């Protein structure tokens, strides 16, 4: 009994019991669960089978039951009563009177027990026509016998579950046998494994006892297996060995520590001096490298008591050392500017470049410093040297030299350490300085334009906000100028972006030259420059500056061998008049700049409320324009063109007017730019052309003589691929002959792409229409193209006519144009003729065709028709 109790107390015993119990209970549970499920499943299956049998019998019994064929019903019963487990079969009529059964006593009787009555009730209500129940270990099923959906009787079959019970019994027997076999097998295996494991544990526990007694020479097996206990055993072996080693090492270390402690105590008293010196230097700080170097040489000389201490820098190709500072202790003087070439001192240089410390007690004979002896050491009386390379970011950048004069000196370790510390501190100072420089550069780049070196937008806005605050505080005014180069895009397109950049730089330089230091100039991007002028008392000063800038910038620039003329448009906004924050001031200056552009460039404009209103008007105008096309609010007006010599109407120009429902007649100057911007111009022009052409055809049909109709060909229309076809179609649609039509194109537009213009205009002329060039003399026409363009008429722009005949320049230009036209075989027509003098001048100079208020302003078709009728009567 005691043995058994001992066995259960051991790990071995407990593990085996545990394994067996776990095994037995798990398998027991498994088998129990399996059998229960199997039994349930079998019962369910049998019940289903029985149900099917019941339904089968019911369907077979129906006819016999109808015929009351008791013999046939009896045969049916006897056919199935021998099936396994079948206990009772009853076939009844609709009133549950038994008509056939394997229980002879039941014949012609009806069920009387409560369960049967319950089943009858269920059957009567059952929609499926069958009822299954499991009671008293019996399977009880009932099925309805129907004919044509009507119940004529019932079948009831009662079956035992005996075969299921037997099957389950067999399963259980097998299960128990398996459990017992498994338990035996597991017990054996567990016992074998556990015995093996515990054997090692026993060995280990014995060994541990020995070690505790200080006996490290315990014999243990090698534990070569891979299980945890073997690993523990191996670790245990290592541990014993290591404990053994450590104990002996500790003993020897103890002795060494005691020695070292004595030495260290001695050294500490000396090094204290150097420590203090280093702290002192650190306190002085290193705001800039130069100060750091100065401090370093002085402190080193005083602390180490060395006559000469110097700092040298390697040049970029490592070919020379340049002295940055040389301090002489006895005279307290600093010097610099000396230089050592590498080819003169190859050994020394090699050591320095490799970052080696040079500590020469006898410098005259030291292999590294020997090469200095005759030319340097001897004359200066230097006998010992301690040179420390300065290493920054892994690269040697220079060297700190300590030169001893007088008796030889052996450099002690703490002195070397001090020198190294000073060198490292210097390197750190340079590093910090380098970073500061990079930061400064980055800071600068972040706020300046890379191309022109002017402030960029962010710095400008910052300065502007600052200036606004200052002005607010002092009650001052300030001005923001928005400067934009005129036609800069043309320079870029013609000469290339590189040239464009050079122009920008040149403009920036000119701006700088003409402004005070304190004025902030910035390039916002592209060809836009901005300028803040502070402390202005009155607008006159701003006028002065702006006009000076306009004037200065229009002087030609010599760039890349070209002489370029650059003009600027300047917009000015004033604080606090035009805005009280940077954004609105900039925006308003920008708007003003656009106004300057509209006013003819090369000028400056102030921002005003009126400008803002105009901007708003544009938006409203655009939406009304779209509506206007749909509503038919446009009207064609006709301005007569007259032969100045005979005063006879020879044609007319069709001009569009907008009859706005609220605003009344709107002039083209107000809506054409917007129509062009939005592309509505195409629709408007087509409408005008069609209406005018129809009108023309109508007049000719009436027998009137309207002459030639002048139509403006929209720029956008001109560049369309279908331009010629569109015009052709319009002519045919309106019934207007091509000879009655003259199309006016503008000079500037043609010159955008002269080659294509020549092709399209050629196509138009092939239709038979005449072509006129509008606003001649205002653009940059190339005469060579003018020659090649298929034109019939040159139209002299009213800007030249206006000054006639007093203005000599205008007169000269007009005469030149007329002469040019004549030499190219073209006619001329002058527009905007308002006075008799103008008319006379033009006629006298060979321009007979006149258009303008002098002969009549643009009028609606009805009025023009009256004029034509009048003229016809005259004739």
């Amino acid at each position: 009994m005691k043995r058994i109790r001992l066995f259960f107390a051991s790990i071995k015993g407990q593990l085996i019991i545990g394994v067996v119990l776990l095994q037995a209970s798990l398998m027991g549970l498994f088998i129990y669960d399996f059998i229960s499920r199997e039994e349930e499943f079998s019962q369910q299956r049998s019940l289903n089978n029985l149900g099917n049998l019941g339904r089968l019998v019911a369907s077979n019994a129906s006819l016999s039951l109808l015929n009351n064929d008791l013999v046939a019903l009896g045969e049916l019963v006897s056919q199935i009563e021998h099936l396994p487990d079948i206990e009772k079969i009853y076939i009844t009529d609709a009133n549950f009177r038994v008509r056939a059964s394997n229980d002879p006593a039941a014949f012609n009787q009806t069920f009387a027990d409560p369960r049967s009555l319950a089943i009858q009730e269920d059957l009567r209500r059952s929609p499926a026509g069958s009822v299954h129940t499991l009671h008293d270990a019996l399977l009880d099923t009932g099925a309805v016998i129907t004919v044509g959906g009507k119940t004529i009787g019932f079948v009831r079959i009662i079956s035992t579950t005996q075969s299921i019970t037997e099957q389950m019994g067999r399963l259980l027997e097998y299960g128990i046998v398996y459990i017992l076999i498994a338990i035996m097998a597991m017990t054996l295996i567990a016992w074998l494994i556990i015995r093996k494991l515990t054997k090692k544990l026993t060995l280990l526990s014995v060994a541990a006892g020995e070690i505790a007694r200080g006996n490290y020479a315990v014999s243990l097996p090698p534990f070569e297996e891979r299980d945890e206990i073997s690993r523990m055993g191996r670790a245990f072996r290592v541990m014993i060995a290591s404990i053994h080693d450590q104990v002996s090492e500790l003993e020897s270390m103890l002795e060494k520590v005691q020695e070292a402690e004595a030495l260290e105590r001695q050294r500490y008293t000396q090094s204290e001096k150097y420590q203090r010196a280093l702290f002192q230097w650190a306190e002085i700080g290193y705001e800039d490298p130069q100060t750091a170097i100065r401090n370093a040489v002085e402190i080193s000389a005083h602390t180490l008591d060395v006559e000469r201490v110097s700092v040298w820098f390697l040049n970029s190709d490592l070919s020379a050392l340049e002295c940055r500072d040389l301090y002489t202790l006895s005279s307290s003087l600093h010097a610099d500017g000396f230089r050592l070439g590498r080819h003169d001192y190859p050994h020394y240089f090699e050591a320095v470049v490799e970052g080696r410390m040079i500590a020469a007690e006898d410098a005259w004979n030291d292999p590294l410093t020997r090469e200095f002896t005759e030319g340097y050491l001897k004359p200066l009386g230097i006998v010992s040297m301690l040179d420390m390379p300065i290493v920054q970011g892994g690269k040697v950048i220079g060297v700190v030299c300590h030169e001893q004069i007088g008796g030889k000196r052996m450099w002690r370790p703490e002195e070397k350490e001090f020198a190294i510390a000073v060198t490292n501190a210097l390197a750190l100072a340079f590093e910090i300085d380098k970073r500061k420089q990079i930061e400064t550069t980055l800071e600068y780049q972040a706020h300046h334009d890379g191309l022109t070196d002017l402030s960029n937008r962010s710095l400008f806005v910052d300065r502007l906000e600052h200036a606004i605050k200052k002005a607010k505080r002092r009650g001052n005014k300030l001005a923001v100028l928005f400067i934009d180069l005129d036609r800069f895009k043309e320079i870029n397109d013609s000469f290339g972006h590189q040239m464009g950049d050079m122009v920008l730089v040149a403009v920036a330089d000119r701006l700088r030259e003409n402004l005070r230091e304190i004025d902030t100039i910035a390039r916002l991007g592209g060809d836009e420059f901005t300028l803040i002028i502070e402390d202005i008392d009155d607008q006159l000063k701003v006028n002065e500056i702006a006009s000076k800038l306009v004037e200065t910038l229009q002087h030609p620039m010599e760039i890349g061998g070209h002489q370029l003329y650059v003009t600027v448009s300047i917009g000015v906004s004033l604080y606090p008049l035009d805005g009280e924050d940077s954004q609105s001031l900039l925006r308003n200056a920008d708007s003003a700049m656009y106004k300057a552009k509209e006013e003819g460039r090369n000028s400056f404009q102030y921002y005003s409320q009126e400008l803002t209103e105009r901007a708003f008007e544009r938006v409203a105008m655009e939406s009304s324009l779209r509506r206007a096309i749909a509503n038919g609010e446009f009207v064609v007006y006709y301005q007569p063109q007259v032969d100045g010599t005979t005063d006879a109407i020879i044609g007319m120009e069709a001009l569009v007017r907008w009859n706005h429902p609220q605003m009344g007649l709107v002039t083209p100057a107000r809506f054409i730019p917007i129509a062009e911007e939005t592309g509505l111009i195409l629709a408007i022009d087509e409408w005008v052309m069609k209406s005018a052409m129809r009108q023309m055809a109508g007049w000719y049909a009436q027998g009137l003589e309207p002459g030639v109709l002048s139509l403006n060909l929209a720029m956008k229309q001109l560049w369309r691929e279908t331009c010629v076809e569109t015009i052709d179609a319009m002519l045919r649609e309106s019934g207007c002959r091509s000879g009655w039509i003259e199309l006016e194109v503008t000079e500037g537009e043609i010159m955008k792409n002269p080659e294509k213009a020549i092709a399209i205009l050629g196509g138009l002329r092939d239709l038979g229409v005449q072509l006129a060039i509008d606003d001649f003399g205002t653009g940059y026409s190339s005469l060579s193209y003018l020659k090649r363009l298929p034109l019939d008429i040159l139209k002299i722009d009213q800007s030249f006519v206006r000054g006639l005949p007093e203005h000599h320049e205008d007169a000269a230009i007009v005469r030149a144009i007329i002469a040019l036209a004549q030499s190219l075989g073209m006619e001329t027509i002058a527009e905007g003729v308002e006075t008799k003098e103008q008319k006379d001048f033009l006629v006298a100079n060979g321009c007979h065709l006149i258009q303008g208020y002098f002969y009549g302003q643009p009028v609606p078709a009805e009025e023009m028709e009256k004029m034509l009728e009048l003229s016809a009567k005259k004739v």
Partner: protein
Amino acid sequence: MRWTTALKTVFFTLIAPFLFSGCGEEKTSPYAPVFTEVKERELIVGIHPYLNAQRTFLAFEPILRYLEDHADGIRLRLETSVDYADYERKLYAGHFDLSLPNPYQTLEAQALGYRIVAKVKPDTDFRGVIVARKDRHIRSVSQLRGEKISFPSPTALAATMLPKWFLFERGLDVDKEAFPQYVGSQYSSIMNAYSGDTVAAATWPTPWKTWQQENPDKAEEMELLWTTPELVNNGFVARADMDEAVVEQIVTLLCALDTTREGKAILVPSGFTGFERADETTYVPVKQFLRRYDAAIGFGK
């Protein structure tokens, strides 16, 4: 001691039930249903099988339920028959309390202990019809000579005897000059002609009508050749020992059936339009016909 206790507990709770459950076979007291006598007396009603059993049930069950519902304490049970032989066996043995036999069987039953109490109406429906496949192109009686002709059964008055008599009067003695096939039921007779097993089929109008309705596609291929003159319709008899009051109650209800909408609807599946009172004298024409028939053609062939 702890371990042994634990072990015992585990053994008895987990393992022992498995070990012992197999040995002690539990015997539960077996269940058996308990029975009692049926006290109610039912009257058995038999219908001559002019419809098959299922159709008979569906046609007459509603009529019997109607009678039960409207009469006092009468329980009626319909009992169909496998065929005419089966029906006649039961009828002549007095098995039915009430029965609806054909006119021939009506007279037979009367002789064997039944009273004629009512009959089916109208008599106009009680005639025979002879049908054939259209593609046989039967136009005259002589074409049937030497051919197979299907009949439901030898004793079916309307469906067999009347057609036979009709053919006999037109010069064809079926039993001698053709091959009568007795195929058990009205539908069977028609189907035999349809399938080509026989050249023509004899039946009577009601099944012919319903067969046509139920098989319109097949009916397309068939045609009605001849219709015989009418005779007295099916009778309704009660066994002579029946309580007269009970019989009277049933006959009254039956004859009033076609006077209500509900009653008319119930009658539809049977193919009859209603019942009327009848007695021995009503069936004199049948008796006379049978006498002539027997003399000329003879029964039991």
